[in-house]
């Protein structure tokens, strides 16, 4: 069966990864076409593929097979990367289809599995909620839909200097988004993501204030800005964001080009590590000129611990004859280190040329890399699918309550008094759940206060150790000779302490949201659910069982937890960027250099040594003080945001539960007053409704079941979302 390219409609051989005509990545095509056919069987229209950028927003130009070139120019025929920062239009027509290596195909996800369609379920349950006039629930589902639309999956490109990270990103997109140079190295992280129009945003922070300014740049100016050591004006640049309209990125994939790590103990190395918590995938970049070195392997091991979906990419295979041996050696090193990663040899040079000659794609080795990225996106999507499934589960449970209560009253009119009584009690309890005195509120408030105190204490303890060590170092030597090294050392230590502290905050915030969810679940479960269960049990002998008796894998607790996390979702990188700011914004050189002028360095007299040491100690203490101040403020702000977000989230849930019990009470008492004929009709209606709810839940359960909730959401990213923003 030929795979038809969704971009240019060219039929390609089965197993081909890129369109032989237009160079489009075909796995996306497969996903799109298959999804379209399955959902066509459903009742919804215009939902061709669920997790694509929200289909109800006009976010998909060029989606329906229109050639998506913005301008018609072909890249200049030079060895340089194409100038045009848009999807490079390809005019060369190659007769032979791209022959894909068999192993690469095996590594690819089946396109059908890539995008489970939970949009259908979202729409269906939203429809039902609307019918029941439950505005709170439709609002909740709308929020979920919006988040699914914004969903992104960041893949970080990490490696030593000059291994070709920026070139690799450029080659992937076949456009020149990241500035590359033989000599200059990238100095700030660059995030490349999808955008309707080309946009370059520079995020900078100004010393002495909280303001983050975002300036729009021209792409031509980017090179001057991201270069290491470049003059960046008054503000301290901490990240650059490039939005490009590119097919590869349309499904939420973001590429993060990081500065060279320079070893595990460097500042950039630590910060890159910190950003990995928020990343969906890791591409570790090394080149074919040599095998992995000890620092690289150390770094990789640590990095994989934080972001297990990783690949080792060996670049520059076009330059080295013996790259196969290097790749094999690297495989051996990985094996010895106990790392099970794919090793992908690529040639960015060929891939860039492939913009004009798609036949070169096979030779460039990028098929496997794109396959890996597709896999990362697929897995992240699957994780989010499970979270969405739990959200749908929550909504349908609420809806089922109302109809269950009504059905019980209709089926057993004689018991209606008792049922109404129980529902009244449940309503009462649901009411107390949303009161400020509810126990979960206590858990949350106390927990945040504790956490703020603990975070500050932890940071103070860590920094005190650093300060003591740095004082020892200063005392042992003359700052005149060693100050530069001491500074570098101090900066590394502070970065390490900051990252460790931030890790602690994130972990604890995660635990806290678990604890709050547990308390909430306990309260609502012990109170409301028990009352309702007693009601529902009487339905057990009915033909159509209550929809509420279906339970999600992971149970009801899982439902609340994942739902809470999804709602607490914030754009990726928010937290790690905050850390970048804090540690990088205070360059010790500036702070310390002002104190220890050149003049003092020049003083030769031995008497001056202790004076210099004193100066150095003061400078170090001041630097650490400054860092502590900024870090504490960041942590406190972040935790307050977390507190507010968690409170709002559970408050709205409590509201929904209260509304459900209220509606159930009303419906039951209304049903108890119906005449027998009306009862018959109403019971039939309710059976139909229950069946629909059951269908939705079955569907959702099937979607979520391949991935268990625990494994679904990447560790760290949950708390990332809870704390950041």
């Amino acid at each position: 069966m030929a795979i038809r390219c969704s971009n240019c409609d060219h039929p390609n051989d089965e197993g081909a990864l890129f369109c032989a005509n237009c160079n489009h990545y075909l796995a996306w095509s497969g996903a799109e076409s298959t999804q379209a056919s399955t959902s066509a069987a459903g009742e919804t229209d215009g939902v061709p593929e669920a997790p694509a950028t929200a289909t109800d927003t006009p976010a998909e130009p060029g989606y329906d097979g229109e050639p998506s070139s913005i301008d018609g120019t072909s890249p200049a025929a030079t060895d340089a990367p194409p100038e045009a920062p848009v999807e490079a239009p390809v005019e060369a027509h190659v007769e032979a289809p791209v022959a894909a290596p068999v192993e690469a195909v095996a590594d690819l996800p089946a396109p059908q599995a890539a995008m489970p369609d939970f949009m259908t379920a979202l729409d269906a349950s939203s429809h039902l909620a609307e019918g029941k006039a439950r505005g709170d629930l439709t609002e909740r589902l709308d929020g979920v839909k919006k988040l699914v639309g914004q969903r992104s999956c960041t893949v970080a490109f990490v490696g030593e200097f000059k291994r070709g990270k920026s070139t690799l990103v450029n080659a992937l997109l076949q456009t020149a988004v990241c500035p590359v140079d033989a000599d200059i190295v990238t100095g700030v992280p660059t995030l490349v993501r999808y955008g309707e129009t080309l946009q370059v945003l520079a995020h900078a922070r100004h010393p002495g204030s909280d303001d983050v300014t975002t300036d729009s740049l021209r792409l031509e100016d980017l090179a001057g800005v991201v270069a290491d050591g470049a003059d960046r004006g008054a503000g301290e640049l901490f990240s650059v964001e490039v939005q490009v309209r590119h097919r590869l990125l349309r499904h939420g994939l973001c590429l993060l080009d990081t500065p060279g790590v320079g070893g595990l103990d460097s500042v950039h190395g630590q910060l890159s590590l910190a950003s990995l918590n928020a990343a969906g995938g890791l591409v570790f970049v090394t080149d074919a000129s040599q095998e992995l070195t000890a620092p690289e392997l150390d770094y990789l091991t640590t990095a994989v611990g934080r972001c297990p979906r990783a690949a080792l990419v060996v670049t520059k295979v076009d330059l080295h004859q013996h790259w196969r041996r290097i790749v094999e050696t690297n495989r051996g090193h990985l094996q010895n280190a106990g790392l099970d990663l794919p090793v992908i040899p690529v040639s960015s040079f060929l891939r860039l040329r492939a913009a004009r000659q798609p036949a070169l794609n096979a030779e460039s080795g990028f098929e496997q890399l794109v396959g890996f990225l597709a896999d990362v996106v697929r897995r992240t999507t699957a994780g989010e699918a499970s979270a969405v499934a739990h959200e749908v589960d929550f909504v349908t449970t609420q809806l089922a309550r109302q109809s269950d209560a009504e059905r019980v009253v209709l089926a057993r009119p004689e018991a209606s008094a008792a049922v109404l009584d129980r529902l009244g009690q449940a309503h009462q309890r649901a009411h107390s759940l949303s009161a400020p005195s509810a126990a979960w509120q206590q858990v949350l408030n106390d927990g945040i206060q504790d956490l703020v105190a603990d975070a500050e204490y932890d940071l103070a303890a860590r920094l005190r150790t650093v300060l003591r060590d740095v004082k020892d170092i200063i005392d042992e030597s003359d700052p005149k000779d060693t100050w530069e090294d001491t500074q570098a050392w101090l900066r590394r230590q502070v970065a390490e302490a900051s990252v460790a502290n931030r890790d602690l905050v994130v972990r604890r915030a995660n635990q806290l949201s678990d604890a709050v969810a547990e308390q909430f679940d306990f309260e609502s479960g012990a109170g409301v659910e028990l009352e309702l269960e007693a009601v529902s049990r009487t339905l057990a002998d009915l033909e159509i069982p209550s929809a509420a008796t279906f339970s999600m894998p992971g149970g009801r607790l899982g439902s609340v937890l994942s739902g809470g996390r999804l709602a607490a979702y914030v754009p990726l990188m928010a937290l790690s960027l905050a850390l970048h700011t804090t540690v990088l914004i205070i360059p010790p050189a500036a702070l310390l250099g002002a104190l220890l002028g050149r003049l003092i360095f020049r003083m030769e007299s031995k008497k001056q040594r202790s004076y210099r040491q004193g100066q150095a100690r003061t400078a170090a203490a001041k630097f650490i003080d400054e860092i502590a101040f900024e870090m504490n403020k960041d942590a406190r702000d972040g935790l307050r945001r977390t507190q507010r977000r968690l409170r709002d989230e559970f408050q709205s849930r409590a509201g929904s539960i209260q509304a459900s019990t209220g509606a159930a009470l009303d419906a039951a008492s209304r049903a108890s007053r119906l005449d027998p004929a009306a009862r018959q009709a109403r019971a039939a209606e309710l059976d139909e409704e229950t069946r629909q709810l059951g269908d939705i839940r079955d569907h959702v359960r099937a979607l979520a079941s391949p991935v268990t909730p625990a494994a679904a959401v990447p560790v760290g990213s949950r708390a990332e979302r809870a704390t950041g923003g």
Partner: protein
Amino acid sequence: MAEDLIERIGALADDARRTAVSAEAVDALDAIVGRLDGPVRLAISGKVKAGKSTLLNAIIGEGLAPTDAGECTRVVTWYSFSPRPYAELVLHDGTRTERPYVRGEGALEVDLGGHSADAIDHMEIGWPSSRLESVVLIDTPGIDSISAEVSARTHRAMSAEGGRVPDADAVLYLLRHTHSSDIRFLESFHDDAVAEGTPVNAVGVLSRADEIGSARLDAMTVAERVARRYRSEPRLHRLCPVVVPVNGLLGYAAATLREDEYAAVVAIARGPKEEISNLLLTADRLARGESPVGVPAEARAGLLDRLGLFGVRLSVELVRSGAVATSTELCARLAETSGLDHLRGVVLRQFDTRARVLKARSAVTGLRELFQRGDCGDGDALLHRLEQITAGAHEFEEVRVLLELRSGELSINADREAELDLLMGGSGHAPGRRLGLADDASAEEIRSAAIAALATWQGVEQHPLSSRATQIAARAATRTIEGLLVG
């Protein structure tokens, strides 16, 4: 001048030998004297796979050191001149054993005889090569190696542990790209017992220079740009003020290019233009691809091994454009492009004279330790004589000033700084060089320049606002100039 100094130190060592109290002390003294008389020891050091062995082969002009795409130099190896070729293992306990070797594919393969690399201190290769007569080359395993033990061996060779005089007099440090771990390593070298920090005996070599520019034809120009930036980087400048881009592989090939290889280059260059660019697109295509040019893939792979992708691209371009017409011409162009000639010039200029001073310094350090330990009879008297020698040695003073100047400890205005660096022999010890004149300057020119410089530095020395350190440096400068004038 330096010869005098070496003679006096040698005489002192002889006297000490007569009163030595133990056999170990005698051995130690012998070692010091041997070192003093022997050729300068130049270590080639750098990160793993920086191209150390390739550079060594290029300098010797013979493929002695094994090179490989993987990490291959596992043992510190000394290459010195000997009329009779031999290979000898020196174990940690000092025992020496001569081992048989075979010369396969050009490189020496020494049978380690069951000794594990961990037990071997170093290996000594004696070879009848004229280029080894004036220098002992020390090839080291790279730092940052996966095997921690390999890295440890390198550090042992480069720096003196436990007061041992370091093996190397000077070092070529191969940089591929500066980053923190590189700079730390340079510091560890400078931290040794000879001299606390010596930017005077390190030359940075930007190796595998062709790869920086992705093997494009302008790669060496790009590399020169990078080297220039390194030189102007204050931190790096303080550690090794001279950085030279070198493509060792090309330099070695230029020294040893065979006619059949030249013929292969010519055959490729005669192919149609389209075909050439297709073939030279990637290393894989060149080594494995089917091609109508009349050179079999095997020969092309061999050529690629010898010249590298950059070398093949350059050679083909040179032949195709008619810039070279014979293999000799091609070799000359390749040697020039490789930067090896330039490096050789720098090493000769910088180290040839200074090396003897540096050796003398190494010897003084070694003797001082021996005397202080009291292993040679009357330590105090010997120490006293040693102090007399060192105090009177203007060569030491010059090196010291140069060191201070380059490490940034001496504050002096920028014009004077360059001038002083030259005077102290920073770019060579010939009188013309010291005075910043052209190499072919006449005696008269030198004399008038020296007199002018003398007035300047006397002025600096006596200026009331000059700091004490500046005064001392200026005094050294005037003394040097006086020496030049006396002849």
